[in-house]
């Protein structure tokens, strides 16, 4: 069995410097969005999915664990945040915390069950667990079934920032995204991230070196799930609702697609992938079910000919890690 991603370059000071430069460019570009003609709602939505895809990529790109149920963290955090904001009347920052805590708890439980199996089995278990949650949310009273939780108050972040103003909301979402991204970046470049990569490349060898690989994978799963939950909580403020689509397994498929298009195991790939897929859905919405066909075709093309993804191909061409 070969590894999911090939030709990984070592983390050198130069590589980290390159990545920091690209990060600065990305942050500047995103910060200037309100001053351009780009529709901010679209960018906010893409940012939430970009964070979700980055969190997912932490698990699959660096740990080699393909979760096919990451929508469960997005949806669970979304529902819990929405409930905390609307029914309990909590302020936004505490609402987000409730969502993150829920995703954290859920990732501990699901991680404990799923991490014990590898490869395809791991994917299938995460998929089945997320479908289990889907049916629970379909029937649980607090989620309002098919209607979802709607009309969520946006409120004032820390009592100061009025989230009902689009520009304020945009910067809050952007700061949330950048914070999550930097945290993932830090994790990847830490000794923990290096061990994770070693496990992905050759787990038996990592075990023989004395690493308790199950614990590393478990921790990666919790980090990834919790960060995915953070994305779900942010998304509640953007969409002002929490619904079943966020928990359905097709959402998990979309997250995989975003990461695959951008480049598995690259730092910036998931961000690019999320923007590409969300833009596609936005502009191809008129084609109805053909969007599914196009998405399926992208899957097939990526897997057959374009396995490194957009950023992966660029990084490979320049022999840089991005």
């Amino acid at each position, binding site marked *: 069995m070969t590894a999911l991603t090939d030709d990984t370059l070592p983390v050198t000071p130069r590589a980290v410097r390159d990545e920091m430069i690209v990060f600065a460019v990305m942050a500047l570009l995103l910060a200037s969005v309100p001053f351009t003609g780009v529709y901010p709602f679209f960018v906010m939505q893409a940012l939430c999915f970009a964070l979700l895809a980055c969190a997912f990529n932490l698990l699959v790109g660096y740990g080699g664990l393909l979760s096919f149920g990451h929508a469960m963290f997005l949806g669970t955090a979304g529902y819990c945040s929405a409930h905390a904001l609307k029914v309990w009347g909590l302020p936004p920052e505490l609402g987000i915390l409730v969502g993150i805590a829920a995703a954290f708890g859920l990732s501990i439980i699901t991680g404990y069950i799923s991490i014990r199996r590898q490869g395809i089995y791991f994917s299938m278990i995460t998929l089945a667990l997320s479908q*289990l949650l889907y049916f629970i949310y379909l029937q649980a009273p607090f989620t309002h079934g098919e209607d979802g939780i709607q009309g969520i108050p946006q409120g004032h972040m820390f009592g100061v920032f009025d989230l009902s103003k689009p520009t304020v909301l945009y910067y809050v979402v952007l700061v949330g995204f950048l914070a999550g991204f930097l945290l993932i970046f830090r994790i990847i470049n830490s000794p923990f991230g290096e061990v994770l990569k070693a496990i992905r490349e050759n787990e038996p060898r990592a075990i023989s070196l004395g690493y308790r690989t199950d614990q590393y994978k478990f921790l990666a799963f919790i980090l990834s799930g919790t960060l995915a939950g953070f994305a779900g909580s942010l998304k509640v403020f953007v969409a002002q609702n929490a619904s079943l689509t966020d928990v359905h397994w097709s959402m998990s498929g979309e997250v995989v697609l975003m990461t695959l298009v951008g480049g598995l195991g690259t730092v910036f790939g998931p961000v690019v992938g999320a923007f590409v897929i969300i833009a596609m859905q936005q502009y191809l919405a008129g084609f109805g079910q053909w969007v599914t066909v196009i998405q399926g075709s992208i899957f*097939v093309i990526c897997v057959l000919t374009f396995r490194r993804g957009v950023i992966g191909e660029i990084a490979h061409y320049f022999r840089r890690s991005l």
Partner: protein
Amino acid sequence: MQALYAQLLVGLINGSFYALLSLGLAVIFGMLNIINFAHGALYMMGAFVAYFLLNLGGINYWWALLLAPVIVGIFGMILERTMLQWLTGLDHLYGLLLTFGIALIVQGVFQNYFGSSGLPYAIPDQLKGGMNLGFMFLPVYRGWVVIFSLVVCIATWFLIEKTRLGAYLRAATENPTLVRAFGINVPRMITLTYGLGVGLAALAGVLSAPINQVRPLMGADLIIVVFAVVVIGGMGSIMGSIITGFALGVIEGLTKYFYPEASNTVVFVLMVLVLLVKPTGLTGRAA
């Protein structure tokens, strides 16, 4: 009591579909090391082919039972030759992603032309009506589905575990290079195996057409339950997937009678419980 027997029968029928589908998955997984995410879409295609045969070609159910698996099986073999083949030697997760893409394409195309609502497919005349068994009323067609799929499952088990062809197949799973050295065309065998697995899915589709109607998304949600069945059973043996398939169908039926709220989730809950006790699944080999 009537309702209990009725739910048991529904459970047995669902169990037949679970068994046929997880059997096909197990056969494909054994040879190609791929979890065939397109299995649900191919099951749906089986039902649609039966529908087309009847409405466009005037070909009846009995011929559809034979022709639909062959037609969809050939389609599957083309998929294997043109796409899946290129993934040999790569991480098996790419197989899952590729077949997921294929499933999206197939389902999307059918949804475009047929919407999401169901098309009716009549029960063949010979299987209409019902039998009074004394304790319950048994619709003939439903009884037929259970018995016919049981026969197909056992025949497949016999083919793989007891015949010479099956022995080659199992040997090629263990060590393809060595089997090749004996002059056996392993790539062709892989293609045929994929065709067989896909054919089993299509056969399940034909069987289900008169019961569940013909819908583009009929396989999409079913396949996730089948994945759970596979995780519980453990993919270790052909017989394992057959028994687990039927057993879980029955358990699901019983839940529908005693505690209907949990009927959608009981398979997944069972999966969690089994994994906590035995992470390899009931009959599983180590992954």
